[in-house]
């Protein structure tokens, strides 16, 4: 029986939907002078980092059954930050960072 789940802050980075573990989010700031620009500050659970995104869409809870490993063929072709998993619901696909 699945008991695990993760609460994600969902953002649109302009190309894809990203999910960040809500427990790791320190703060979300609107970037002054840049309409639609947000800065997500992370680091409650790990080392501090920040990420700029176009839009903050809200939050979603994914159960373990909605989480998949990153396909190897994709992992090898990601040039930037590596997501740790893919969230797959009936409606959306999220990259989890």
């Amino acid at each position, binding site marked *: 029986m*699945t*008991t*695990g789940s*993760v*609460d994600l*802050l969902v953002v649109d*980075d*302009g*190309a*894809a*939907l990203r999910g960040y*573990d*809500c*427990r*790791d*989010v*320190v*703060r*979300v*700031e*609107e970037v002054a002078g840049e309409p639609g620009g947000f800065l997500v500050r992370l680091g*409650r*659970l*790990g080392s501090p980092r920040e990420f700029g995104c176009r839009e903050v869409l809200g939050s979603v809870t994914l159960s*373990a*059954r*909605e*989480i*998949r*490993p990153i*396909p*190897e*063929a*994709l992992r*090898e*072709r*990601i*040039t*930037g*930050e590596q997501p*740790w*998993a*893919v969230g*797959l619901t009936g409606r*959306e*696909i999220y*990259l989890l960072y």
Partner: protein
Amino acid sequence: MFEVIGMMSPGGFSPLQEVREELLREASIEAGASGREKGRRDSGPARSLLVFFLGAEGFAVDLAHVRKVLRPARIARVSGTSPEVLGLMNCQGEVLCVLDLRRILSPGKETSPAAESEGKFIVVVQHGGKEAGFLVDAVRDVTELASSSLHPVLDSIDPSRGRLFEGTVSYGGQFVGLLSPSACLNP
């Protein structure tokens, strides 16, 4: 500006990595319980080829490495990837990485995934524990390959492209390139 307050577990914060690994472990158990684990395919002694086209150019891939052929559904883009990655697709509850075969064969050419996947096919190829879907224009046929009909890759082909092929085969009066699944799956 707003602030998201972190959640505290009874024993304090769990290390992020530990939580993620636990979720992936559970996800893996779920996949097994649902029968989504893929069976290993026995390639068998005969060599059957799936023939498909990119524009007017024909290609083939050993059917032993083809898991399925699909019509594209919605492909979710992924940022920060190499150009041949079209994105991820929900393939009956599995996450499929969809690659632009045209761009793998001819690096540098621009394609637009949303518009150009319409009316096409995705050939899902497995090899060496890796799997990806290759977007192709048309799937034509399954044909048997006689061992004598596999020819070496032409010397005139650029070596960087030539490495993607096992050889060439005759199909319907023309030569088609027999793709190397390993080379196409590995960047």
